[in-house]
């Protein structure tokens, strides 16, 4: 079924052409003729020619020139066999140099000519195949490249939209490919109005890494917004990844949380390089990885080891994925930890620190293959911060009257963080425009006061200095594990008033209470680390009232028109 091979005979001698034509036709080829080089060039551009048999000496355009033109102008491969009476070696070599693929000297044997045509045809077919495959590959490549470009944008939108603006204190740099390689930064505002940040890096590169990061976004944002502690968020993320990822894949991550009420930084480092806390140009604390990366084995929340440090305004935390450590220069050297520390130590001032670290690394890799995997963040603990796009969901108000009660024994308090579920309950029942996170803060503060000082009888004066705060936290963990009895009762009730309402939070704990007559101190006079909770609640609530021996607290929060009338 094959089409006959099409041959072009180029010769100015009509006898030569006729002899060849007769011979080739007898062999079953289709034959075209040209009288000189120019005619050959014209024919090739109009007709599908498979192989050319070319004389050398011809008028108008000789064989050398014709071969050159044909080879440079025709995009696919046409073998050219020179047929010539020349015997001079230099001139024969010129046939090949000008683009000929083979030479046969006249008089030639017909057997040999046939063999050469066959051999050239095999090469031609092979070439054609490669050209086709190349074309397909090119098309494929172009399409993939376009898809990658679009996907990169989509990914950037899904994963990194929530950087909370330029006044949030969070700065970051991600090279364009690093997003697509599974590097991720998430950030959200927490209950203390500080930031929770997750910076992470998947093993491997490309699509599989990038896809795996999408469910992490869902878990991070959903859980931090509902007020889950970040150990719980990490546990959920880890266990999801264990199910989802193949054995050899995992996610190295650091979870960073800034508590702005107590000025405390908490870090869980699970497989990321050291994080540095920098004060006045010096590294004052290094957060080393103490946990397995996520997605390797199933864990419970208490598996995670967390480090804490007290924060001063102006402090900066630097975190990076391993891309910066592994950035390579032209000599195959890695950038490494020592150079990063050098950059930190030699930065002119705190504001230039971030760019210094980044630029030094870029300068190091300057002449090397583009190291496109660098993700670096800086979290600046500023006195005044402001966030863009705070997430208060605007829902149609449907004020109603309701109440709900929770009673927790000590075992439940130990094992379970009830607050996110209470908040879910409140949010489900009641839309409080712009008040959601306020209610959450009030509830969290009152609840932790009842737990810490009521049920666990912890001494808040411990929190007078930063070291004490850490001690306080430690003691809390210990007592929570050892305490044998106690309970907390929480009653929430809501009453509709005009187009707003009043939410009453009533909390009773089993503790000994405290002398609440002293709690009228104002926010202004309170400069210590502890005691921030109560004055804060007082500013957020319409009224806060301690009763009994100090183990009962009733706080009311008004919203909508009710809030305005209550203020006046």
């Amino acid at each position, binding site marked *: 079924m094959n089409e006959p091979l099409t041959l072009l005979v180029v010769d100015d001698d009509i006898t030569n052409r006729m002899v060849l034509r007769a011979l080739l036709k007898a062999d079953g080829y289709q034959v075209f003729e040209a009288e000189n080089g120019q005619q050959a060039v014209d024919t090739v551009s109009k007709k599908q020619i498979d192989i050319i048999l070319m004389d050398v000496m011809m008028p108008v355009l000789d064989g050398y020139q014709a071969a050159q033109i044909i080879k440079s102008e025709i995009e696919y491969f046409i073998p050219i066999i020179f047929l010539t009476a020349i015997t001079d070696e230099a001139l024969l070599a010129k046939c090949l140099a000008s683009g000929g693929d083979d030479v046969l000297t006249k008089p030639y044997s017909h057997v040999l000519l046939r063999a050469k045509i066959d051999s050239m045809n095999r090469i031609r077919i092979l070439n054609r195949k490669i050209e086709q495959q190349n074309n397909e590959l090119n098309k494929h490549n172009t399409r993939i490249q376009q898809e990658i470009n679009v996907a990169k944008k989509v990914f950037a939108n899904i994963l990194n939209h929530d950087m909370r603006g330029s006044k949030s204190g969070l700065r970051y740099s991600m090279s364009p490919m690093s997003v697509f390689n599974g590097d991720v930064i998430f950030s959200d505002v927490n209950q203390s109005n500080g930031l929770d940040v997750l910076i992470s890096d998947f093993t491997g590169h490309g699509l599989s890494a990038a896809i795996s990061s999408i469910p992490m976004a869902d878990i991070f944002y959903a859980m931090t917004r509902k007020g889950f502690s970040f150990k719980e968020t990490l546990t959920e993320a880890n266990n999801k990844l264990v199910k989802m990822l193949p054995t050899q894949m995992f996610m190295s991550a650091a979870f960073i949380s800034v508590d702005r009420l107590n000025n405390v930084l908490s870090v869980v480092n699970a497989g990321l390089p050291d994080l540095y806390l920098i004060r006045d140009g010096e590294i004052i604390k290094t957060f*080393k990885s103490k946990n397995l990366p996520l997605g390797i084995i199933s864990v419970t929340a208490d598996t995670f080891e967390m480090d804490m440090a007290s924060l001063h305004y102006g402090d900066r935390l630097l975190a990076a994925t391993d891309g910066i450590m592994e950035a390579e220069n032209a000599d195959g050297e890695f950038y490494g930890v020592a150079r990063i520390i050098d950059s930190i130590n030699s930065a002119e001032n705190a504001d230039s620190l971030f760019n210094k670290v980044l630029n030094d690394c870029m300068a190091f890799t300057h002449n090397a293959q583009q190291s496109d995997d660098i993700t670096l963040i800086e979290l600046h603990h500023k006195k005044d911060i402001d966030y863009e796009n705070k997430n208060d969901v605007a829902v149609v108000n449907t004020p109603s009257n309701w109440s709900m009660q929770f009673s927790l024994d000590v075992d439940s308090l130990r094992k379970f963080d009830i607050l996110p579920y209470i908040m879910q309950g409140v949010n489900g029942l009641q839309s409080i425009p712009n008040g959601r996170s306020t209610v959450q803060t009030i509830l969290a503060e009152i609840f932790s006061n009842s737990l810490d000082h009521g049920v666990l009888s912890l001494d808040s004066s411990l929190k007078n200095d930063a070291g004490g705060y850490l001690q306080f936290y430690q003691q809390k963990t210990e007592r929570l594990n050892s305490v044998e009895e106690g309970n907390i009762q929480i009653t929430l009730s809501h009453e509709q008033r005009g187009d707003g309402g009043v939410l009453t939070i009533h909390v009773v704990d089993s503790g000994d209470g405290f002398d609440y007559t002293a709690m009228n101190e104002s926010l202004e006079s309170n400069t210590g680390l502890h005691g921030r909770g109560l004055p804060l609640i007082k500013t957020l609530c319409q009224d806060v009232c301690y009763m009994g021996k100090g183990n009962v607290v009733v706080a009311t929060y008004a919203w909508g028109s009710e809030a305005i009338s209550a203020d006046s």
Partner: protein
Amino acid sequence: MSITANINDEKNALVITVPGRFDFSKHNEFRKAYKDKQIESGVYEIDLHSTEYLDSSALGMMLLLKEVADSNSSVVKITHANDELREILRIASFEKLFVIE
């Protein structure tokens, strides 16, 4: 230089060495090294004495080997890592999963 895998009958161990850079390019070779050499109730040893560099996909390959070892009631030992490699293993807390000597 390529990966070698030798069975040490005395120790009931398969000793795998990974010369040079241990990264994604070694993926197939590393898997072949242990695929047809099952060790029952013994040791898979990853000998890093001639390894210059580990990346996270190398860590992933070690996890794959651990899976095989677990199913054969065997353990995975990582030996002769230099300081830089040890630091990489430490960051990943791999001492929690592997015996590192």
